[in-house]
């Protein structure tokens, strides 16, 4: 290889790494700030007094489902038109949806990532708080690593085990079992508080599985049209499976009052649109970092979101975060960096190591 070519290749990869870090950082900032919108969704009508929903824990389930259905609907419409339309990839969306061998995996990913994981995290935000929910989501990497090992035989290296160990220590601080049990068993606890903690656990298990499932097909399709296929599948799951179940169990009145209240609340629609443009849109950035700096570094940089979330929630909402959540989040971020940072010898090398 002559010196001239080497020079060009070095320049090109430098440029690539620079953009990878810029995009990863943007992703973290957007994702962190999204938690303001996620928290605001609970503070505007009809979610501030919950009068449009049934009483108690059932009401929370209906309220969360309502919020998420509206959000995924707005995500699909807003981002398809402006982002896919703007990048000229709109025609690729129906092609991706029609290629069933691929889209069925996106649908499975949507089932775990949407109704399961986001449902969980939204309950955690509603009952306990946005910073807690954001921190608990960091444990996704632990679940993701185990699922990838079980399904694809991807190696968990010594370094990764170390990272997982550190993350679990962080997770113990975040979930704070002693306080959690005391809170749940206290007679003064609000009805269904345990749902918030359960939701947090369900969220990182769901996202871990989502990542592993999507990993099967995201290689072979464009990440932007793939992401929208996933959004489309999630909307279908809400409309075709979950709402009919609610309809049968709770009757049409409950369902139509809930959805009607959400769709006619302008402040809720505005905050949801902001949640979509920050939260859902940050996914686009995260997937773009993978080819530029590698999956491991991309994920590490993106997880800085939790620090931005905690800072943003404090500055803009005035909501302080419990010290054990902050400490646990910092420990978990360190664990993720340990696990992924040096996942390849060079930035141009393949980031996937498999024992096959």
């Amino acid at each position, binding site marked *: *290889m002559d010196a*001239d*070519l080497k020079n*060009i*290749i070095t*320049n*090109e990869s430098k440029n*690539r790494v620079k953009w990878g870090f810029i995009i990863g950082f943007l992703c973290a900032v957007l994702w962190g700030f999204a938690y303001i919108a996620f928290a605001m969704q609970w503070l505007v009508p009809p979610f501030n007094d919950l009068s449009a929903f049934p009483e108690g824990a059932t009401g929370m389930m209906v309220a969360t489902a309502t919020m998420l259905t509206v959000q995924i609907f707005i995500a699909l419409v807003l981002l398809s038109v402006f982002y896919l339309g703007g990048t*000229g990839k709109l025609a*690729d969306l129906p*092609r*991706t949806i*029609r*290629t069933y*061998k*691929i889209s069925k995996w996106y649908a499975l990913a949507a089932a775990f990532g949407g109704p399961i994981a986001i449902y969980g995290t939204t309950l955690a935000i509603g009952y306990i708080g946005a910073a807690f929910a954001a921190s608990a989501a960091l444990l996704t990497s632990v679940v993701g690593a185990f699922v990838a090992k079980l399904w694809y035989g991807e190696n968990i290296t010594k370094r990764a085990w170390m990272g997982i160990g550190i993350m679990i220590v962080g997770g113990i601080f975040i979930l704070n079992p002693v306080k959690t049990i005391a809170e749940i068993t206290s007679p003064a606890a609000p009805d269904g508080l345990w749902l918030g903690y359960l939701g947090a656990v369900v969220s990182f298990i769901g996202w871990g599985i989502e990542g592993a499932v999507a990993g*099967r*097909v995201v*290689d*072979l*399709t*464009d*990440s932007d*049209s793939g992401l929208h296929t996933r959004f489309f599948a999630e909307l279908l799951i809400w409309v075709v499976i979950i709402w009919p179940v609610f309809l049968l169990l709770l009757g049409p009145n409950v369902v139509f009052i809930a959805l009607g209240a959400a769709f006619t609340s302008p402040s809720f629609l505005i905050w949801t649109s902001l949640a979509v443009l920050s939260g859902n849109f940050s996914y686009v950035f995260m997937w773009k970092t*993978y*080819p*530029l700096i*590698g*999956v491991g570094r991309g994920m590490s940089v993106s997880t800085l979101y939790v620090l931005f979330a905690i800072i943003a929630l404090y500055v803009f909402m005035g909501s302080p975060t419990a010290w054990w959540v902050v400490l646990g989040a910092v420990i978990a971020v360190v664990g993720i960096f340990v696990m992924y940072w040096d996942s390849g010898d060079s930035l141009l090398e*393949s*980031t*996937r190591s*498999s024992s*096959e």
Partner: protein
Amino acid sequence: MILFLNLPVHLLNEELKNEMIIMAKLPMKSRLVQLLYQQKEAWDYELIGKLLPEYGKNSDYWKWMARFWMTELSCGGIFSIVDAKADDGSRFAKGKVLYRYSISDFGKSRVEELLEA
């Protein structure tokens, strides 16, 4: 569909016509992987020269997009880089690197599982 591909219809038999329609239905990046799967080894500009006309694209933006996809694919272990040379300006732009790719065994198994038959 055939008009869209700019091919003389009478030259195609039924079977080939159906095959072309199926191919045009794949998402662009998936079709890119399938092209290398069929050719085993190729330069990036050769793949782009085949891919873009099938979808009626030709601009620098889509060339850039296809090269971004190929970077993704080599990063994900689907494509392997077998050779590289400097672009003298005749392919994309002066100062770019041209890569020759082969499909990896991992890539082959992915295509066979998700795109073929």
